[in-house]
Structures are given as C-alpha cells and as structure tokens.
C-alpha cells in the first residue's frame, strides 16, 4: 500500500535497480554482473504463434541449468515486429531473436546464455552482425519510430506493477493529486494538443472540459477498448503490454472531471487483455492507486472491466454506453452529448486506449514536450498497425507528420515479392484508400480527412497490384452490412443495397447506372445515418470510386477485373508458346477442365473452369495466364 508520493518514489528507486539491465543499453555483461533478463513477447501475434510455450521452455531451461538466481524470464508486451514472432530479447545485450520456437530455446541457452555467443540464425533480418545491439536502434524499423504510447511495451512485465512504477509509473498521478487542481489538468491536456486516437480526433482536453463543467453528483469515465477496426491491434497491444498506463490515465481523468467510477469496455475477442487488465486493476487496488483516499489526497476512484460481445458498432460512443448498461449496443441520436447525458444518463467522458496511454507522459513531461512532436494540427505520435501486402507486418509508432512512404517503405520494408504498391487503406471500415500519388502526404488527422480517408484507430493495410479495389470496397461493405445495428434505414437498408450493387459489379453484372446509384446512396447515408459509423460507412466506396474509377468502369463497361480478382470475370488460358505439355495442370485441376496430351495442345474448358487458380499455381513453366 502506497500512502503518499514519497513512498511511491522510494518504491520506484528500488524497483528501477532490478530492471537496470533492461533499461540501460550500456551495461556490458561482465563476470561481476551475472544477471540476465530474457524478455519474451507474450501478447497479440507472438502469443498466437506460440510465444507462451517459448516462455515455458525458457523457464524450463533456467530450472535445468539451475540459473534461477541469475536469469529471469519476463513476459512483456509487443516489440512491434509481429510477423517475426515469437520475439525473444536477451538483456543486458538487447539481442533480439525472431521466430523462436520452444526447440530453439535450448540452443539459446547453450550458446548465448552460458557460452556468451549469439545465435545468429535467429537474429532479426538476414544480416549477421556481431554487434547486434548496436545495430538494433539503427535499423529504420526502430530508428524512425518514436514510442510514447508504446513506451513500456516490450520492456516491462505487464503483470508486475512494480516494473511499471520503476519506469515512473503513477508519478503523473502523484503529480496531479499533489500539485494540480482538476482544471489545471484539463488545461495541461488542452495545451498539449492531444486529440482522440480512436477515430474522429476530437481534442481530448475539450472533451474532458465539457464533462467537467456539468454539475452532477455522479459522473463516469470510460476507456473505449472495443478495438473493432479489422487490422488494428494497437489497443490490444497496449492493454496487454502496459495496462497500468491506461489505468493511471483514467484515474487522472476521473480527478479532472470529478468522476469516481470508471469502466474499461473491452471487446470479448481479447481475453488476454481482459486478464491483464484484471490483474493490473487488482494490483492497483492493493497498492492504493484505486479505491479511497488515493495517495493520501482524499480522492476516490474505482474501475471495472466490462466485456463486449461481438458488435463493431459498440466502438461508437453512445452504443458502447448502452452496451455497458447491458443492452443492445445501439447508438442514440446526439444531442444530448455524452458529456452531459452519457452512461446511465450521467455525464461521461469516453477516451480510447491509445489516447489514455499518452496522458501520464504528457503530465510528467509537460504539455510543451508533447506539443513539440507532430504537426500543426496533430500533436504527438500515432501508432499504426501495418498489415496486408507489406514486409514488416507489425506495430509501429511514429510522430504525426511522417509520410505514408516513410511508413510503408522505410519502416514497413516495402511490398513483398517485388510487387507494385497500389493503395493504403486507413481508418478501417469508416476510412478510405489512399493511392500511390499521395504517398508523400505527411500523415495526420487533417491530411487523411482531406484525402477522403480518416485516421481511425490506426489500421494501415497495404494493397498491391493484385488487389481489386471494387472487390475491396465490397469486402468493407460486407463488414458494414454485417455490423450495422439496424436502427436506422440508411444504414440498415442503404448499406445492404450498396453491397448488392457492388456484388453485381464484381460478378460482371453491373450497369453504368449502378455507379450513379452507389453515389446517391453513399451521399445520403453519409448525411442521414443516425450515428458516426453509419455516416462513415460509404467512405470505402467513395474513396475507391474517387481514386480508382477506371477500375469500376472496367468492371461495368468491359466486364473485366483489371486485377484479376473478381472470379466471374477472370479467364485462365494456356500460353502455347511456353507450355511444355507436362500435364501437371491437368492432374491438379479439380474440375477436369483441362484437356490435352503430349500430342495435342493443352486447353482450358471455360465452361468447366471454376477459376480456382490451382493450375496457375502448379505450372512449373508459368505458362498459364490470367485474363489474357
């Protein structure tokens, strides 16, 4: 139990010592210092690819080698290089091993831990540097990033509150409770220029203020952890890697707006995040950061986790609140705003996970520090989840204003297999596609909106030349139709009709007037849907129609899919000049559509062909052409 700021600082100094080898990259392994920390990413992608078994193997090796005194295994949050997982980092050297299997662990122990020799085959990338730790911060993937929200991820054990405290955790809370009036907190956040990281980018300070000024006995603060945009997983990573940063921020938020109860609404698809949060909340209670008379300053605050149950629309503020109330997560018309009448009709502040993760550092380092990062209208950093056709799939945090090209090519390592970049999709189902001509746009809230997309929660899906933009629009509408709450006709029926039209077009049955209909529907859904999600549902169609209209035209007028994705319009043919009549295609064709033998040319019967593409895949001579 921490009773005041002084005790907190004492604990911090003590806890920091135990973590030094992780924090200080200059510490050399030496005979005097036998301590080794083995960090294993225990979240998201790594956990899905078996990192927890790796951690068990490490633990086993420690036992077997009786190294319990010297070597510690720590399950941390995300390092960012998710496609290379499971990631293991050995400190003090800060050597990062990738794609580690439980079987590799023995070798790491024999060679590295006991023998002092790095296991080169497990290093990140293809290069084999002796001095891996010097290289690490310099590879663009790391050097071009700036970690604020993800600051502690990959360093601390998220289930150990003392490691969070060691890294200045809860100092911001102590500072606020000791030195700030509630309105000072809001002023500081306003000054920092922080905008909501969950979607619209509303200024956070103003949001807090509008609730703070409402005079009402009961108020709430809520953390929106219903990360629903497909392809975005930064909130999951923060919650799983650094849950206390969110908890600390919510307490500060409560203090600033005079609220004493908070809720964290987490989607049920994130069981690990829920578990980590529950552990963290329990610890925060034990240490006295939650409960009554926090740090001896007379402020009370409590926190509860609430689970979603699989509804994208619950990411919308008012829907989220109805869901916390235990009802169908349907949005309601605004006004009244949530700041006045939110959860249980009480004033409520709702912020997203990443927004909260910025708060403690803004308080600790001051608004001016934060303001110094980013662009004119968008301060600080943004976490992006890189996905799709890109080499370094993973989680990156960059200053606002970094260009799309830098993110995709320098940090993301470009497009695999030498393919051509076609577009980047941001903002999830509410966002849009950005074509190659805008690759050099510095990314921030306003530039993305101007391009017809939006920041959203930060999913960034890269598409290459093999992606059909009409099909992609159809995919997003698939999602929207499925996830529409059904309350208002524009979204309930309008998106369905848009989807039907897109299906028609991708099946080669589109008519020119279908494009007009799409536009009319899109315009009206945007204007008249009840909630922000409905209003933004047409964006993927509008932006692809804006930048890739020729592709739509090709589908509608020529009944052709230029990317060769839309099956009904694709034709597979055999290039007789290349074909060696090896008959591999014939053997693999599931429908017997290919005929021919060594004397007769091989041909594909278009009636029988189901366009599965197996022949093309199997042909050793690349003689099968699509859409020729």
């Amino acid at each position, binding site marked *: 139990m921490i009773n005041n700021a002084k005790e907190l600082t004492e604990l911090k100094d003590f806890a920091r010592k135990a973590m030094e080898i992780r924090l200080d990259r200059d510490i050399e392994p030496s005979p005097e210092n036998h301590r080794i920390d083995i960090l294993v990413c225990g979240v998201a992608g790594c956990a*899905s690819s078996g990192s927890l078994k790796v951690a068990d193997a490490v633990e086993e090796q420690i036992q077997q080698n009786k190294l319990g005194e010297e070597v510690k295994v720590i399950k941390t949050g995300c390092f960012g290089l998710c496609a290379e997982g499971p990631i293991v980092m050995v400190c003090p050297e800060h050597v990062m091993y990738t794609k580690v299997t439980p079987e590799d662990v023995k070798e790491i122990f024999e060679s590295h831990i006991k023998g002092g020799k790095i296991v080169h085959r497990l290093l990140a990338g293809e290069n084999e540097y002796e001095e891996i730790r010097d290289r690490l911060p310099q590879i663009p993937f790391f050097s071009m990033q700036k970690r604020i929200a993800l600051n502690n991820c990959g360093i601390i054990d998220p289930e150990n509150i003392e490691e969070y405290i060691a890294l200045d955790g809860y100092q911001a809370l102590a500072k606020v409770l000791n030195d700030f009036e509630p309105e000072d907190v809001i002023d500081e956040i306003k000054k920092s220029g922080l905008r909501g990281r969950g979607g619209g980018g509303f200024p956070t300070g103003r949001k807090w203020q509008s609730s703070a000024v409402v005079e009402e006995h009961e108020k709430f603060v809520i953390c929106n952890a219903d990360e629903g945009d497909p392809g975005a997983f930064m909130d999951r990573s923060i919650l799983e890697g650094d849950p206390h940063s969110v908890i600390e921020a919510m307490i500060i938020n409560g203090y600033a707006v005079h609220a004493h109860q908070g809720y964290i609404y987490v989607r049920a698809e994130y069981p690990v995040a829920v578990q980590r949060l529950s552990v963290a909340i329990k610890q925060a209670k034990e240490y006295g950061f939650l409960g009554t008379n926090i740090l001896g300053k007379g402020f009370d605050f409590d926190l509860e986790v609430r689970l979603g149950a699989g509804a994208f629309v619950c990411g919308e503020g008012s829907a989220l609140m109805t869901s916390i109330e235990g009802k169908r997560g349907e949005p309601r018309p605004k006004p009244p705003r949530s700041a006045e009448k939110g959860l249980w009709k009480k004033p409520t502040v709702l912020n997203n996970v990443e927004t909260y993760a910025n708060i403690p550092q803004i308080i600790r380092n001051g608004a001016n520090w934060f303001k110094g990062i980013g662009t004119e209208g968008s301060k600080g950093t943004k976490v992006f989840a890189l996905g799709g056709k890109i080499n370094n799939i993973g989680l990156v945090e960059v200053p606002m204003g970094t260009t799309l090209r830098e993110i995709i090519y320098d940090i993301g390592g470009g497009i695999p297999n030498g393919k051509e970049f076609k577009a980047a999709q941001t903002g999830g189902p509410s966002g849009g596609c950005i074509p190659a001509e805008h690759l050099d746009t510095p990314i921030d809230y306003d530039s993305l909106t101007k391009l017809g997309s939006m920041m959203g929660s930060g999913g960034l899906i890269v598409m290459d030349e093999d992606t059909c933009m009409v099909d992609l629009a159809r995919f997003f509408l698939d999602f929207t139709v499925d996830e529409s709450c059904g309350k208002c006709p524009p979204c309930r029926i309008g998106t369905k009709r848009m989807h039907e039209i897109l299906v028609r077009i991708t099946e080669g049955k589109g008519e020119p007037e279908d494009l007009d209909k799409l536009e009319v529907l899109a315009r009206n859904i945007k204007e008249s849907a009840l909630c922000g999600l409905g209003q933004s549902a047409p964006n993927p169609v509008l932006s692809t129609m804006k930048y890739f209209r020729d592709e739509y035209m090709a589908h509608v007028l020529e009944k052709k899919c230029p990317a060769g994705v839309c099956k009904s319009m694709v034709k597979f043919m055999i290039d007789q000049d290349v074909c060696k009549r090896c008959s591999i295609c014939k053997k693999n064709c599931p429908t017997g559509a290919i005929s021919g033998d060594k004397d007769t040319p091989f041909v594909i019967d278009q009636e029988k062909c189901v366009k599965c593409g197996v022949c093309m895949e199997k042909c050793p001579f690349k003689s099968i052409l699509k859409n020729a």
Partner: protein
Amino acid sequence: MTDKCTGCAESQEKAKELQAVIDKYKETRGALIQVLHEAQEIYGYLPLEVQREIANQLDIPLAEVYGVVSFYTQFSIYPKGEYQINVCMGTACYVKGANEILDKFRTRLSIDVGECTEDGKFSLDACRCIGACGLAPVVTINDETYGKLTVEDVDGILDDYEAR
C-alpha cells in the same frame, strides 16, 4: 437409452453454477452481458431455459434478453461443436486469402458458417479481426491458433482433429 441420472446431476451442477453467476452480478448495474458470457461458458450456448432463468432473476423481460443475445455475435442459441473453428475475416487476413480458406473448411466439413457438423465435432464461424494480423491469414480452433495458413494446410489440420 440415456442415463437420466447422470444428465440430471450434470444439469443440476450447471444450474448451481448459473445461480452462482447470477448471485455474483445481481447487485451490479447493467450486468446482463457479463452474466450471459459466463452462462454461455457453463452451457456452451444460451438455450431458452437459461435465458429465462437469467431474465427472471435479473428482472429483465425475456424478450429483451433475447434481443441482446441476438444482437451480439459472440452469443449463440445453438450448441457449438466440440471443436470451434473460427476463420478470421479481418482486412489483413482477407487480403491474404481468408475467403478461400473459409471455403475450404466449408466444403471439407459440408457445413456453412454458423453451423455445426452432424456429429457435433466441428462448428464453423467467420470471425472479426482477432488482432493477430502479423500471422494472416489466421484460423483458431478452440484455444489453438493457426497462422499463415494456406488452403492446402486445412486438410491436415482437420485430419489431426478428427483423429483425436
């Protein structure tokens, strides 16, 4: 003939667990969704009797409870298979061919999305992004995750489960 007594004891055991869940949340505001989650964990799905019990005890109309259950995709009123297959249809997985993988599961198991095989062994669902985009395309079967899948992998995985 089914052994009635065992079934009886088992259902009594479950009813007891359900009661404990309801008691835990009775005083909590807006707890319906949490109760439904835990009830589904006990029963595997949310049949009428379970929903009715929850409705009665939390003093919420059954129609509302059913409306809530039907709203959220995580709740089911049908029993699920022993092995629950979830094909992630997030954007990252989709652009990497999740649809073909889903099709493969469909044809191999001869069931559609949301259905369960006749023997009760497998149920198939398409799910929203599970946040493992680095491994796209991803499929989960119960607590197991299969990443970077190809259509060819599907048979092997299912053979393995069928042999269990």
